[in-house]
């Protein structure tokens, strides 16, 4: 139970994927102009991240490691992610056109979202992940990997939703011409990052 809690706090807040580890910055800046699309993007990414951990972790532990071809991980992982995204897209199109219309435009972007490949690479690095969630490296298992993927995704959603709320407000302010667009978005992100320092003190 304590480990469970630790994963939630660590993945969502202390080591938030966006503002602390700088993963998934492109959608964080690109799709955070309004609340609705930010939430859609966040949930789509969360779903793909969870599913990715569920598939890549066993592939790495039970196939690549026994065969001693760990160096193939990048190629294998990017293929798995691209296939997952493609399959979700097809499934959504077939079974839930409304959801497809809402999420469809974000799905192709997710393949090249570094948060997804990042979480797949992170959960197989047993020493690093163990130090992040406070367990021993040998105690790492698939359950933790999937949970970490889920809550890291929710952390991403949290950050992008907060960002969209702030940007809707900032858009109404008079801003110097050179600061318009990316710079002001990054300064907004800077304040969100400062807010997340509180969690690092825990």
């Amino acid at each position, binding site marked *: 139970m304590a480990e469970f809690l630790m994963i939630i706090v660590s993945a969502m807040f202390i080591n938030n994927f966006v*503002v*602390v*580890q*700088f*993963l*998934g*910055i*492109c959608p964080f*800046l690109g799709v955070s102009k309004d609340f609705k699309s930010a939430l859609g993007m966040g949930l789509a990414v969360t779903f793909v991240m969870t599913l990715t951990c569920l598939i890549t972790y066993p592939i790495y532990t039970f196939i690549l490691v026994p065969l001693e071809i760990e*160096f*193939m*991980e*990048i*190629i294998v992982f*990017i*293929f798995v992610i*691209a296939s997952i995204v493609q399959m979700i897209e097809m499934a959504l199109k077939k079974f839930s056109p409304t959801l497809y219309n809402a999420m469809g435009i974000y799905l192709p972007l997710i*393949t*090249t*979202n*570094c948060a*997804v*490949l*990042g979480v797949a*690479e*992170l959960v197989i*690095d047993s020493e*690093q992940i163990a130090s992040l969630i406070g367990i021993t490296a040998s105690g790492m298992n698939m359950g933790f990997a999937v949970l970490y993927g889920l809550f890291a995704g929710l952390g991403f959603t949290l950050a992008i939703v907060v960002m969209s709320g702030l940007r809707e407000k900032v858009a109404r302010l008079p801003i*110097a*011409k*050179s*600061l318009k667009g*990316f*710079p*002001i*978005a*990054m*300064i907004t*992100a*800077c*304040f969100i*990052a*400062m807010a*997340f*320092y509180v969690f690092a003190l825990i």
Partner: protein
Amino acid sequence: MKTNIKKIATDGVITNNPTLKLVLGTCPTLALTTMAMNGIGMGLAVTFVLICSNVLISLLRKIIPNQVRIPAFVLIIATFVTIVRLLLDKLLPDLYESLGLYLPLIVVNCIILARAESFASKNGVFASALDGLFMGIGFTLALTLMGAVREVLGSGAIFGVKLWDFQIGFFASSAGAFFTYAVFIALFAFFSSLISKAKHKKDALKEREENAVQLEKKEVE
């Protein structure tokens, strides 16, 4: 078709600088610029992958069917990233450690896919290699400069050499990364608008002079 080396060079390093103008590949830029050395390491790794993938994609551009080009590009890029990773692990283990998670993430660095899609798949091998080289240099320069600024202000050192004890922790932190990057993009936009304004003024002045000369000619006639 003649390759316009000068145009490709200024495009990659200045006019279309991938970091400051196109704002691509933001993740490594923000994460690794705590030290100038990291900027150089990451920049060179990305440059290597960019050149190799651009050349191979340009060579195969007539063979790869249009529908499957994105998966094919990603596979090519992933292969080169794997090569870089294995090389760095053996040759420069210190740099390998400090780049950490961001080394495999070069695969999803938008700069490489963007250049593959918008340049290498449409241009010849030599031009693509040059484009990869100069885009890579632009990326490396921007990262190293940002890394140097953050290292001097945040830890009072440059390239790992201690300068003084004065340091502002903010610049070494994650919030400082966003702030520094914002300032860099804003300054870049400011100066490029100044330059283009000056150019406009010059052009307008020239035009007016020419018009005046023509008028005079007419009057003489």
